[in-house]
C-alpha cells in the first residue's frame, strides 16, 4: 500500500526538479547539470578535467564558462556556429584570457550522433555534449535555442550566472567583451 502511494506520487514530486518553470537567469546558480567527462584528452585538457564519470560545469578550470544550449536542428544555431567558433579562437589566441574563459555546448534533444554531425559540419573546436532525452534542456526551463549562459566561477568554488541571452548573437568580439565585463575579468 505504502509502496503504491509512493509510486503514484513519484511523478508529482519529481516533476518540479525535472522541468524548471523558467530559464536560468542572471544572479542565480546553475540548475543541476551533470555532463560526462570527455573521452578526448584534448577536450579534458581544455576543460581542466581528469578521469572519467560525470562533472558539473563549475568544476571546469576557468573563471568563466560560456554555455551554449544549441540543437543540430536549429537554423539560428547553424547560422551562429561560425561566429561562436570565432569566439573560441579569439579566446584561445588571447594570452590574457585563454585560461580564464572556456566554452561548451549542450545539444538539446540531440543524440551523440547528431551532435557529431553538427561538430563536423561546422568544425566546432570546443566540447559539445549531447542531451538526447532533453534532461538538461528541461532543467533549463526548456529554453529556445540558441541560449547562451555565462557562468562566473569563484575561487571558493561557488558560482553564479552573470549573463543569459536567447539568440541575438552579436559576433565574437562584442560577445567576448560582454563576457569579460559580466564576469568581472575586465
Amino acid at each position, binding site marked *: 500500500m505504502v509502496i503504491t502511494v509512493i509510486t*503514484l506520487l513519484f511523478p508529482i514530486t519529481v516533476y518540479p526538479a525535472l522541468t524548471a518553470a523558467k530559464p536560468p537567469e542572471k544572479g542565480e546558480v546553475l540548475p543541476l547539470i551533470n555532463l560526462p567527462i570527455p573521452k578526448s584528452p584534448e577536450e579534458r585538457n581544455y576543460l581542466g578535467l581528469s578521469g572519467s564519470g560525470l562533472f558539473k560545469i563549475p568544476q571546469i578550470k576557468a573563471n568563466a564558462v560560456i554555455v551554449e544550449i544549441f540543437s543540430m536542428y536549429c537554423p539560428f544555431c547553424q547560422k551562429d556556429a561560425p561566429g561562436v567558433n570565432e569566439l573560441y579562437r579569439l579566446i584561445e589566441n588571447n594570452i590574457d584570457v585563454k585560461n580564464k574563459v572556456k566554452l561548451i555546448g549542450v545539444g538539446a534533444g540531440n543524440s551523440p550522433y547528431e551532435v557529431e*554531425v553538427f561538430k563536423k559540419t561546422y568544425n566546432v573546436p570546443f566540447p559539445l555534449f549531447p542531451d538526447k532525452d532533453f534532461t538538461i534542456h528541461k532543467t533549463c526551463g526548456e529554453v529556445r535555442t540558441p541560449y547562451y549562459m555565462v557562468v562566473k566561477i569563484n575561487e571558493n568554488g561557488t558560482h553564479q550566472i552573470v549573463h543569459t541571452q536567447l539568440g541575438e548573437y552579436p559576433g565574437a568580439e562584442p560577445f567576448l567583451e560582454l563576457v569579460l565585463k559580466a564576469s568581472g575579468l575586465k
Partner: protein
Amino acid sequence: MNKKRVLCFILITGVLSLSVLTATAFGLSDAYKGNIYQMGTLKPIDSVLKVKVGKLAPDFTLPSVSGEKVSLNQFRGKRNVVLSFVPAAWTPVCSDQWPGYNIAKDIFNQYDAVLLGITVDNIPTLFAWTNQMGQLWFPVLSDFWPHGAVAKRYGLLRSNGVSERALFVIDKKGIIRYIDVHDINKRPPLEDLVGALEKLKK
C-alpha cells in the same frame, strides 16, 4: 471508501503529471520566434499503414515549393529516395526536423540518396515556413490537393487531416526498404535513418 477516493486522486494526478512531463519534450529554435502553434501531446500514431517493406512504393507526382513537379518514379534506376513526411507547417518538432537534414546533405550523398520532404500544407504556407529554415537543398512537396492524397495512399493520413511523421527509404528499384512511422510527438533520431541507408549497401 475514503482511501479509495484518495488513491484515485493520486492516480489521476500522477498520470496527469506524467503527461505534462512528456508533453513539452522538444527543442525549438528561436528562428521561428513566437510563430509556432503548440499542439500539445497528440496520439502517437493515428492511421493504418497501407504499404510494406519489400513492396514497390506507390508512385506520386506533387508540386514543390520551388515550382516544378516532382515524381517518385523520376529517380527510379538513378537514386535512392528518402521520403520525409511531417505533419504540418508551423508546429513543434516538424519545425526542428528538416533544418537538421539540411546540414546532412553529405550523408544523403554518401548513400546516393535524394530527400523529398512532404506535408499536406499548401505551397504558400510551405514557402513561408521553409524560408525560416534557411536555404533547403532538398525539394519540399505539397500534398495539399486532393488533400493528403499521397499520405492517404501510403496509409499516413491522420483523422484530423495531417500526416504522420514518417520516414521511408526507397531503393533505386523503387522498393521500400525502411519505414519509420514515428510517434508524432518526437523527432526520429538521425542515426536510425542513416542506419537504414547503410543497409542499402548490403
